[in-house]
């Protein structure tokens, strides 16, 4: 059975009298250990589909099964805890918490899951930051880091609970090409270590590097 199974997935947004169908019956299987790039023009439904996989948005129809769990049927708090344990998410604008240091930002998902003692959490957060090459920036606040460094902290945070899946929503969209390349190397390395990596991108270079490509247009898969 595929790690991620999307079946007849539909999502309709309603704004006032307007209805917009962002996903129109998507079926998709992603196996464990794949490196998948989701591409397509703006408004094609890439981010919406990613949001379904991470459970940060609910489908209007269909099902989302991840590692055997029907996450579209979970309650909000259960889903939050599931997400913390199983999915690591990296966004375009980093979304670090400005009042927390790099180390504290990375410790936060473990705090929510109450994993290990505080000392163990600190140690794991350090290791995670070292993995992304920021072992010397642990006490820095986001305001003291460059964009690339902030994104690395976001990746360290996404990895710290050792999730099965790492998901990036245009993770390099706000980075220069050199940093983008370095970031992909990191994703590639993680994938080689067995992590399932899925990202949405507008960058042709980044899309080309993925071992699997999923293309979307008007809320439907063109190529999977």
């Amino acid at each position, binding site marked *: 059975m595929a790690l991620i199974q999307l079946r007849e997935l539909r999502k309709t947004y309603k704004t006032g009298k307007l209805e917009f169908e962002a996903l129109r019956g998507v079926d998709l299987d992603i196996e464990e250990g794949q490196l998948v790039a989701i591409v397509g023009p703006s408004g094609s439904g890439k981010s919406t589909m990613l*949001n379904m996989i*991470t459970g*940060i*948005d*609910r489908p209007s129809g269909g099902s989302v099964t991840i590692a055997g769990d029907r996450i579209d049927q979970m309650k*909000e*708090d259960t889903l*939050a*805890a599931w*997400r*913390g*344990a199983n999915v690591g*998410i990296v*966004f*375009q*604008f*980093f*979304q*670090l*918490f*400005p*009042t*927390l*240091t790099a180390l*504290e930002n990375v*410790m*936060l*998902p473990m*705090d*929510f*899951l109450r994993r290990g003692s505080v000392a163990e959490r600190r140690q794991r957060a350090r290791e995670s930051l070292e993995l992304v090459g920021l072992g010397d920036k642990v006490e820095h*606040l*986001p*305001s*003291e*880091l460059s964009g690339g460094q*902030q994104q690395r902290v976001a990746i360290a*945070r*996404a990895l710290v*609970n050792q999730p099965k899946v790492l998901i990036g929503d245009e993770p390099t969209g706000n980075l220069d090409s050199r940093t983008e390349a370095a970031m992909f190397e990191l994703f590639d390395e993680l994938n080689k270590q067995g992590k399932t990596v899925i990202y949405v991108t507008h960058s042709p270079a980044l899309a080309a590097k993925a071992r699997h490509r999923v293309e979307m247009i008007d809320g439907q898969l063109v190529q999977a």
Partner: protein
Amino acid sequence: MSALLKKSWKDLSRRKARTIFTIITVALGVMGIGLFAITPLADGAVQAELNAEKMHNIGVRVTDVPLTAEQLAELASLDNIDRMSPQAELLVTIEIGGRRERALLVGIPDYADQAVDVVRVTSGEVPQGMQVVTDQGNEANGVITLAEGDDITVQDPAHATHQLLVTGVGKNFIHGAATRNGVAVFYTSIDAIEQISGRTGFTNLSFTVKDTDPAAMAGTVEVIRDYLVANTSVVAFDNLADVREEGFWEGREIFSQIMSYMGILALMILFVSLFLIANTMNTIVSEQTREIAMMKAIGATRATVFRSFLTTSALIGFIGAGIGAGLGILVAFLVERTLMKQSFGFDAPFGVEWPTVGISLAVGVGVVVLASLPAIFRTLRVSVVDGLESHGISADYGHTLLDRALMRVRGLPRVVQMGVRNAARRKGRSVSTILQVAFAVAVVIAMLNGGDAFVYMTHSAYDPWTWDLRATVADDSSNPMAIETAARVEGLEGVMSAERVYRTVAKVNDRAVSLSGYVQATQALAYDTTLLEKGQGRWWTPEEAAAAIPVVVIGEALSRFEDIGLGDTIELMTATGAHPFEVIGIDTAFPENGLYAYAPLEAVQAVLQKGDAVNGFFIRTASSQPDTIDATSRRVSDALEGLGYQADVTVKYVVAGQAVAQNQGLAGMFLMMSFIVVLIVLIGLMSTLVMNILDRTKEIGMLRCIGARSRDVRLVFSSEGLFLALLGWILGLPLGYIVNQVYVAAMAIGMKLTMPDRYALVYVGLSLVFTLVGALIVISFPLRRATSMKPGDAIRYE
């Protein structure tokens, strides 16, 4: 409607909850201004009552003057006289609850034909013969409650009793005022007065005049006097003629002073609401940074942006001020009606004080626009590039010392740490929230302490008095009350001791003080705790008393008002002139508002040239049971009257109870006002949290993305809210002390009330509990929003 005006209007409807909160705050602030309408409304209502009763311009008191119909007609047609009416008053005693109390009977010749000082029968039948109507103030002021068909038994000065039937309820502004001093007032027929007193004639002649100029009225008084002297048995008026200036009524000055203090509180409310308005406008501007940049990008000038936001704030001002002015009208009317009912016993009609409404609207709009200006000016500084590039969660924390200091707070769960640090992100907003909370805590602490001070004042006024009854007799040089009388009183059933005293009024530097001559070994005053334990001097010695040495113990208020210290010599101005007294003690007890002087009885008798005569007794009763005290007071009164003295017996527990009730009412009113301040502040705190949650919607989404449950999100924001509330509380403690000092000073200057400045620790603790509980309650509403957000919606939030 232009596109710009439409945008301003729609900006308000975008965040409905916040707009509603802000409008409510403005409305409450503006409503406070409405309290200034109470005094003119009350004045209008009283004037209407006075007009309805055809209140006299000149009232003269005479002793039982019979006047024929012709003489009355002649009096009514004297120069400058418009109308006149005669009445006959008789002071009697009546038994109320086992005590003998004073009662005033007012005889009206013809209820259907009253030209001046009209007594209105509001229910029941007009009294005839041995019938009375009870003044509505009798019940309103707790003097005596009677129903139609009840009987009252009065005792005339010759101790004969008479029974009168109550036929209804009546009212009269002038006579009814006596009920506030515990005197029962009844209106009856002239026949009844004659039958009870055994005398004929009138005691009160009331006139209205055509020309109310003071000089003209003074001349008219002479004309009346000349007529009476020439045509009747009158040789002189009993008292100075009561000449009333146009618009004057008893209690007007104190009433407007109390209202002034309410007004100060109202301004405080408005001041507090300013913070919230400034916060709201700041947030509207912050949220619209990208829109402002976009407006500028498509050609909007700074003036256009300025106009757009000015319109938004003016709209808030108009709506809030409109609602507030409406509420102000309602509250002013309700407060005025309640006060009028309590004080004067009548239902004030609904009225609107339009100038106050106009001011409320102008101030409301003006204040909102003014509070918005800093935020609006900030819009002008938004650069197009920065504005358009604002995305995601801003990483702008950590640049200030405060940020760094808060990062050193250890040992708290991560989410709590986030909350505490978040408080420093919008520093302006947090500071104004802290100030609001501090201000509310300060006002509540000051008002609670102030209320306590009122109650303490009352207790201080009565607790040191260890007597149960105080008998005072009119000074009669032909029948001085000497030592033997004390023995007679002491021999009465229920009397444990009767201590001689001479009480009079003296002046120190033109300030009236109560001067009491006490026996040296007094049992009537517990000065040991209020004087001796405080180390502020001493009581006089038996030797000083025996030698009538002029030494004096004065009240602390007098000492402070007149800057008198121990060892100083003060001049006591008495009926026999000024006499020097050395100050040997300053007593902290609070009778007479602290404006008193105690001296050896012998010294007081000497300076007043009274020999060994006294004019009263402090009586301690054998039992502390109210019934027994009442019965004893009656015996004392009878005994003294039997000896030929006109005696007035004061019952301590009764006067103390009345004083406590009055002060509690006043304190309650101030406390109510302070709760409006608290209400606004709670709305302010809630609004701050709502705004913070809106600001950080993306962060909430992100927290959910990385595994935060509802309780984690709740903890972040409740820690922030509680942290701000706690800081506000800490700042509120010294501020409360200052507000209390200002309050005490204002009372001293305005109302001549020397209140003890208290700062009770219990209120410090109580205010902490209130602050935290209040904060928890109000932040629970925005927290619901924070925890119910879907992570996807929150992440997409712009």
